[in-house]
């Protein structure tokens, strides 16, 4: 392209992204920078802020709820995203085929995502209830277990939260992967078929390369998204029992909205920033190479 058309390109590019940048700058960048600034201040809601340097962080690292949340957040994110995306990808493969009842399958797939989150989570709480829940009832009746299981107790709570979270959000990723699969040109498959490739080879050499980028991007985006998950954990266990399920978002919420300590809450977020930035770096790296 000539220099002139490159410039013209750039201008069009800038126009295209103007609304986006406007939103980001106005409503996100400014509050975000405020938050980072706050983490270095002693700031209670309703009181003016006071610069205190690293004090909030010192307090944070001594706070058992925060320490537990570091471990929990890491486990939660890695397990959750991997399981969720695997299920989503597998389902996308299945749903990409033509079969009877496919549209119904696709529509019903969306049910968890569209169910309002508060009643859905409360329903899950009810289902998982030790004494009244239907899960224990079914398992006991079928003879699979002898005594009721404490699904939301110390040992299993985090696992159950992962399951509920996956249940709620895998539909969306299935949609994305499905869209990705449908973008692969059929000609490639037909040519491969003519060349005598079997299913496995087709999968390996056509599907995977096309989906690789999307998959990696989704993995990283989902990681970041999961880090912000709050409602499910809050409604199921409130971070308990004994901090078994506290994650960054719940801990920050407690500090900010219960203790009115915005400085401390902001500090939680700031400690997650380096990891997040690293992930961001990875995403942009993957996105550039197609």
């Amino acid at each position, binding site marked *: 392209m000539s220099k002139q058309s490159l410039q013209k390109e750039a201008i069009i590019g800038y126009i295209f992204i103007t609304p986006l940048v406007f939103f980001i700058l106005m409503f996100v960048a400014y509050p975000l920078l405020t938050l980072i600034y706050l983490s270095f201040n002693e700031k209670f809601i309703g009181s003016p802020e006071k610069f205190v340097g690293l004090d909030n962080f010192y307090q944070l690292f001594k706070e*058992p709820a925060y320490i537990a949340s570091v471990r929990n957040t890491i486990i939660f994110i890695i397990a959750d995203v991997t399981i969720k995306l695997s299920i989503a990808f597998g389902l996308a493969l299945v749903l990409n085929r033509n079969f009877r009842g496919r549209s119904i399958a696709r529509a019903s797939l969306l049910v968890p995502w569209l169910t309002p989150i508060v009643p859905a989570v409360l329903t899950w709480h009810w289902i998982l209830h*030790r*004494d009244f829940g239907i899960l224990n009832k079914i398992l006991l009746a079928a003879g699979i277990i002898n005594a009721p299981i404490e699904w939301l*107790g110390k040992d299993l709570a985090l696992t159950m939260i992962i399951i509920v979270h996956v249940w709620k959000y895998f539909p969306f990723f299935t949609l994305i992967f499905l869209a990705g699969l449908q973008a692969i040109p059929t000609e490639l498959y037909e040519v491969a078929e003519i060349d005598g490739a079997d299913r496995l080879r087709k999968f390996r050499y056509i599907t995977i390369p096309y989906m690789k980028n999307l998959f990696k991007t989704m993995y990283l985006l989902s990681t970041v998204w999961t880090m912000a998950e709050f409602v499910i954990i809050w409604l199921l266990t409130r971070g*308990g*029992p004994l901090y078994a399920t506290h994650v960054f978002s719940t801990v920050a919420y407690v500090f900010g909205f219960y203790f*009115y300590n915005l400085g401390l809450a902001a500090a939680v977020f700031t400690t997650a920033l380096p990891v997040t930035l690293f992930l961001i770096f990875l995403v942009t790296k993957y996105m550039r190479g197609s």
Partner: protein
Amino acid sequence: MNLDKRFSRRRALSTVAKVAIGAGVAVAAAGGVAAYFATRPPQVIEKVVTSVVERPVERTVVTTVAGVPTTVLTTVKETETVVLSPTTPTVKKPFEVWWSMPIFDKEKELITKLSDEFAKKHGVEVKLTFFPHHELDLKMLPSLEAGTLPDVIWQVHQNYMTPLFERGALMDVSDIINELGRDRIVKGVLDVVTMKGITYCIPHYMYAMSYLHYRKDLFAEVGYTKPPETIEEFEDALIKIQKRLPEKTWAFGLSVGEAAQYDAHLAIEQIIWVFGGRAIDENQKVVLNSSETIKAVEWIAKMWKQGTIPPASASWTAWDNNDYYQTEKIATVMNPTGSIMAWCRANKPDLYKKSGTMRWPKGPEGKTYLSVGQYGFYINKATEYPDLAKEFVKSFYEKEFYFELAKTTAPYFFPIFSDMLEDPFYKGEEQLWEMASQFLDPTIEKRTTGYAGGYTAAWGETLTMNILPHMILRVVLGDWTAEAAVKEAHSRMDTIYKRYYP
């Protein structure tokens, strides 16, 4: 592939897309414009609104009694013209009241009606909005930060208001209390809302932070036709009842979990008191670690190990203890507010008849306690309508109205005036009287949660971090000793308190 078909479809779609985008932009623009015009600041209020109100005033009057001049303190009704307009002539916002959502429909009706009547009677505009409980809590925080708090808040969660008080955002309402009649008010409830000599709230609904409800029939079966009076008797009854109960039912519905928040925290505190311990002293020092507290924790652990407490209690939410009692899975239950009895009264009369509320059994020191809680009115210190706020709040204590409101919400809540509690409405119904009489009984010591340091923000943090339930869980789930668990809880509280009171 049919290219022509593809292109015509594309063309059709692009037109659709263009139309859709155009429509979208138009909608957004229209929305923005409409929004701007809808929220322009209201007009300047020009007229000065006054109203004639009656107020009781205490006067010393010299009278002659049997020929001797005596000074007598009498209460006289005076009328006064009060200025209800805002203190500054140009005002930016109307008189705003935020009200925590009423639980009963009738209750909401009554409140709305009174508010409208008040507005009409005095010729003012009252903007009354109901918010669900937690929503109101959440709304207040950014408003506090931005300085846009309403003039009056009727709040349910006092722990969200104490930080406001500590930041000096709430008005001292002692004079309103005086005008309502300080002597009429049940002893103990004002302590809940008074800190450092300042009363920052007018209690409206009163309740116990941890009632102990029980199944009279089940206790009678094991020989307790009258409720147990000491902790030994209580323990004895629970164990006997547990032996007779069918599977999946328990004798002692004590919340110990962290998801139950208020329920567990308040119940555990009550039991600690009964055994002679307490968490905080008058100087905001943590005194949790004591032999009395350890005995209390050991007792709870003992009841757990005896199988009288449902194991699921460790992960109960705030709704579970109600549920279990209401579906007859537990024989006793501890709960703040009279919600359980209110529910039974309205929905399960048979269960209601079999239920009662006992005084908390006396501990080793031979004393029992009642933890008093309240929902009430808080006035914004920076309000531009101080007199209007005062008159508005007072109208909700007018005898006839207040009583009707109390009857609608009984036994969830009780009115704060002793004379009202002694009304045949309460005395005449066994279950109601069992609850109401506790407030009036002088032998029961009334305490505020967080005794004796009061309901401070530090105590609020102790609640939110689930320190007390955590302490119990360490012993019943984690196999710690009571000493170790209490020590840990003490040091955690210490860390919190040192930040507020270095």
